[in-house]
């Protein structure tokens, strides 16, 4: 699988064959370091982190406040005190001390030394060996008077070497099967410590085999397309950055203590430097430390010191006539040894064969340490060029110390203002080619043309583009866009015929493409290029098109995307329209008629009075008169029940009451009526 660093894809976009430009460490690293290594509550979580912070600050030349140092020192003194600490703690405490120079009790070193020596003897894991040997080396460094040495240096050297694999990588312990590049770096550092601490000379043949291992390790270097080299790590928890950093530290340490050259290829060292610089500014403390610490190792080592070639700018404006500047620095940004930068050749990216400049030396300004090209050749016009530079060291001895990449291919952009001339838009008659309407355009200012055409006519747009030197300029993007009212867009690339850019839209052949949509089309012209400083997008106006009616089977215009925001938002409120209440006549009318309904009753009463009704037939005997009264009371109550039914009762209660009343009424009615009947029968018989 071709693995690409995401961030390197940025560089790849320039060109796959051209080497990318890497920049040395800058102030952005310093500010990032201060941000990332900001202590929490004026102290760091662990001594390891403290060391990483201090080391990064030291390399970047940042002075930190003393109060943190004081607190850190107290921790260091405690760790190096009589209480027993693990080799790892001791190691980092000593490392922090080597930077801070705390006032520690040297007397205690003897105890620590003997303890560490015991650890070294028994240790069989690489980590233990690394920490304890590292600590011993630091003690030796710290206390010159002490007599720290390893008795059986060859044996320890052997036991570390025994963990190495045939491909140059190391295992963490004899029982572990997995080999790791990260471990290789640790092992090389430990071996360097052994050589340093050895009481007698370490066997040179052993050192030779280790050098061989380093060579093998460098054979496994992987390469990015932009010329950066890195060590890949197969074990999961380590990334390529920490593995590469570990190896660089190890190799530097080993090279520092052994005599003779390591024979490492210079281009790979530059590639490693490119890898660390290509990361930019890492976001985590560990990554930043790895980057800065390994760059510091590369800055000062005994094999090759990489020189970084960088351009402050690769985009130049012809209007301001910037000078072409080149910088050559070490990875940390310090000045290079005396050297000359040569412009081997420069050619336009389109035509490789015809270089515009050849073999020119850049002028060096010692004050700003910038190599600059004074006068750009007159023939340089706007556009993209490839410049090929070469770095030549003055002192031939330096070639053994410093590594450069040799030739640098750099893409350069020269930008300028493009002149736009004789722009015009014309509506032509199709058959004769005679000009119907013609309008001049001012493409540098505002234009608002309004044209109208039918499907038998043509539209022609033409203009001229010239570079500051008067050549014809062909931009990358010359696009005409017609947009119908319904947002259907049609895009045309404006071609150029020799000098002039021209597009002819024959509407007859475009009718189908335009979906037979008549109406107003907005015209938009976009002219843009990387080298054009006045790229523009301009609405030219509109053309009113009169196209024929679509036939049956004409394709419909594609659906246009509706604005999603219109889908959201609240809907219109809906209120229910209630049924209108029935229309009633006015109250007064009802009451009038109510009054009228009483009139017949009154008439009836008057009639009765006129007839002179009497109640002489009312029974006289006590029993029958009681029944008669009860009968009429019964009738009254039934009628009242009806009134109640109207007023409040429901049908069921009424019927129930009516049942009882009815039975009662039947009984008393029967008695009353039979009494009356017998009375009248008596009267008749008598």
């Amino acid at each position: 699988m071709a693995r690409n660093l995401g961030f390197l894809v940025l560089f790849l976009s320039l060109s796959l064959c051209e080497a990318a430009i890497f920049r040395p460490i800058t102030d952005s690293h310093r500010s990032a370091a201060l941000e990332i290594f900001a202590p929490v509550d004026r102290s760091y979580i662990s001594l390891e982190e403290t060391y990483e912070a201090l080391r990064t600050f030291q390399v970047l030349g940042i002075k930190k406040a003393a109060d943190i140092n004081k607190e850190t020192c107290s921790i260091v003194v405690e760790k190096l005190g009589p209480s027993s600490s693990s080799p790892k703690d001791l190691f980092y405490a000593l490392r922090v001390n080597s930077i801070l120079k705390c006032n520690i009790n040297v007397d205690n070193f003897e105890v620590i030394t003997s303890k560490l020596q015991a650890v070294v003897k028994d240790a069989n894991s690489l980590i233990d060996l690394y920490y304890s040997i590292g600590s011993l080396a630091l003690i030796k460094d710290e206390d010159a008077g002490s007599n720290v040495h390893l008795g059986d240096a060859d044996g320890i050297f052997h036991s570390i070497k025994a963990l190495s694999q045939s491909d140059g990588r190391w295992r963490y312990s004899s029982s572990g099967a997995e080999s790791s590049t990260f471990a290789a770096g640790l092992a090389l550092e430990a071996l360097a410590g052994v050589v340093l601490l050895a009481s007698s000379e370490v066997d040179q043949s052993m050192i030779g085999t280790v050098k061989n291992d380093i060579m093998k390790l460098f054979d496994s270097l992987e390469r990015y397309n932009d010329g950066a080299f890195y060590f890949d790590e197969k074990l999961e928890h380590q990334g390529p950055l920490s593995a590469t950093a570990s190896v660089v530290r190890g190799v530097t340490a080993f090279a520092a203590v052994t005599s003779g050259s390591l024979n490492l290829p210079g281009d790979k060292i530059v590639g490693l430097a490119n890898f660390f610089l290509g990361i930019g500014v890492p976001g985590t403390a560990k990554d930043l430390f790895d980057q800065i610490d390994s760059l510091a190792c590369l800055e000062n080592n005994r094999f090759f010191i990489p020189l970084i070639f960088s351009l402050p700018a690769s985009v130049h404006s012809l209007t301001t006539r910037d000078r072409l500047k080149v910088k050559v620095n070490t990875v940390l940004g310090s000045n290079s040894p005396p050297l000359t930068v040569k412009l081997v050749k420069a050619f336009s990216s389109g035509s490789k064969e015809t270089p515009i400049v050849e073999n020119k030396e850049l002028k060096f300004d010692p004050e700003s340490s910038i190599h600059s090209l004074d006068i750009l050749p007159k023939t340089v016009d706007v556009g993209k060029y490839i410049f090929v530079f070469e770095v030549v060291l003055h002192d031939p001895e330096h070639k053994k110390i410093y590594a450069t990449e040799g030739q640098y291919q750099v893409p350069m952009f020269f930008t300028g203002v493009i002149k736009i001339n004789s722009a015009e838009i014309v509506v032509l008659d199709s058959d004769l080619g005679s000009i119907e309407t013609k309008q001049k355009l001012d493409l540098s200012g505002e234009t608002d043309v309004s044209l109208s055409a039918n499907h038998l006519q043509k539209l022609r747009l033409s203009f001229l583009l010239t570079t500051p030197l008067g050549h014809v300029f062909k931009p990358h993007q010359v696009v005409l866009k017609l947009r119908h009212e319904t947002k259907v867009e049609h895009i045309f690339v404006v071609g150029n015929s020799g000098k002039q850019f021209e597009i002819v839209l024959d509407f007859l052949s475009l009718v189908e493409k335009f979906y037979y949509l008549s109406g107003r089309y907005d015209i938009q012209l976009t002219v843009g290029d990387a080298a054009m400083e006045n790229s523009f997008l301009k609405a030219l106006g509109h053309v009113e098109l009169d196209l024929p009616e679509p036939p049956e089977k004409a394709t419909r215009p594609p659906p246009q995307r509706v604005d999603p925001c219109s889908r959201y938002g609240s809907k219109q409120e809906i209120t229910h329209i209630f049924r209108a209440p029935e229309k009633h006549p006015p109250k007064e009318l009802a009451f009038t008629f109510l009054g009228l309904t009483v009139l017949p009753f009154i008439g009836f009463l008057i009639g009765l009075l006129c007839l002179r009704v009497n109640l002489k037939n009312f029974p006289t005997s006590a029993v029958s008169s009681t029944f008669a009264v009860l009968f009429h009371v019964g009738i009254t109550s039934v009628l009242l029940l009806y009134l109640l039914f109207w007023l409040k009762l429901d049908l069921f209660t009424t019927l129930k009451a009516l049942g009882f009343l009815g039975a009662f009424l039947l009984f008393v009615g029967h008695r009353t009526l039979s009494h009356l009947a017998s009375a009248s029968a008596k009267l008749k018989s008598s």
Partner: protein
Amino acid sequence: MAKLWIFVTLVSLLPFLGSSFSSENPTDRRILVLLDDFAIKSSHSIFFKSLQTRGFELDFKLADDPKLSLQRYGQYLYDGLILFSPTIERFGGSVDLAAVLDFVDSGHDLIVAADASASDLIRDIATECGVEFDEDPAAMVIDHTSYAVSKTEGDHTLIASDGFIQSDVILGSKIIEVPVLFQGVGHTLNPTNNLVLKVLAASPSAYSVNPKSKLSTPPSLTGSAISLVSVVQARNNARILISGSLALFSNQLFRSGVEKAGSSTKFEKSGNEQFVTELSKWVFHERGHLKAVNVRHNKVGETGEPAIYRINDDLEYSVEIYEWSGTSWVPYIADDVQVQFYMMSPYVLKTLSTDQKGRYFTSFKVPDVYGVFQFKVEYQRLGYTSLSLSKQIPVRPFKHNEYERFITTAFPYYGSSFSMMAGFFIFTITYLYNK
């Protein structure tokens, strides 16, 4: 022994149960990050660190790791997936296109970052989400009028874009003032898919072509139809972020300054960090996740919820809506929550008033149509999870005794019958006892 075994299993499952995505705690917790290369972990570390400090557990894996799997025993191991592997042709392990889509279909969130020369697999995932990348694998978005001015990049593929979507919930309430740097491939949105939204749009002068080839045919993607970053909110509220640029998330673009072509203001730091951080908050449900509780309705003047309403009743409806803030549920404040009283179609649609403490309420009269109605709240707003509440309630007509009893108009009829009754009473007496 068996009991002990069950106990051990349960205890070992506890951390999973405690930290995973739930409706009570809708923010994602465990996120799988698939990388092309572990170097991306360090080159994009600011983005990852901001996720970690917000409490996410990131699990970094190589995309071709043979041990890769999204689920085990039918349970998903992760709540979110970040695909920072634009070149991967085939995922390792059991993960493939279908597995990723299933992961989203079960309500999990996804961030996909493509790049120029993105693989077919990444394109297929995007296509399934309604986003189509430019078919030309070498194409990049170029913009000659709103590029980021740079001394070192001359081909105008590094775009300074400020075509943000107008949505507080997606991009945070703080307006992003600095343009966002983008370098990568553009995409268009499927016009028929209305779940996908353009978050960062290209300027009208942008076009998407291979920068190294000559432009002979019209570019397939041009102008503001090009979307640089899009988001999708699926119907199950799973959220997807699709970016045409992996570099958008990188430390380098987070830190670099911006000067947009044609503008004189130079910003110290690009808007990428704010843009990406706010967008990731949205994607991982730290914002814009709504829940509705305590849906109540009752007759005016009563408190209990009736089993049935009568036509023309006055009723009150209330619902409480809360938004997840990443750590707790806070009252959601808006003025456009609407309730529908719905039977086949809405009979009443009313905007709810709010007390600014998350409670929304209104009152209205039941329509004079009887049948089985529903109280419906269909709340769909840009960027928010959709709320869809419905509660069924029958509505009956008047009982026979609930009609008006004393209609004035009918008084003449009543009057005549009662006068007739009175006449009848008198008539019975006179008729029986007259002599």
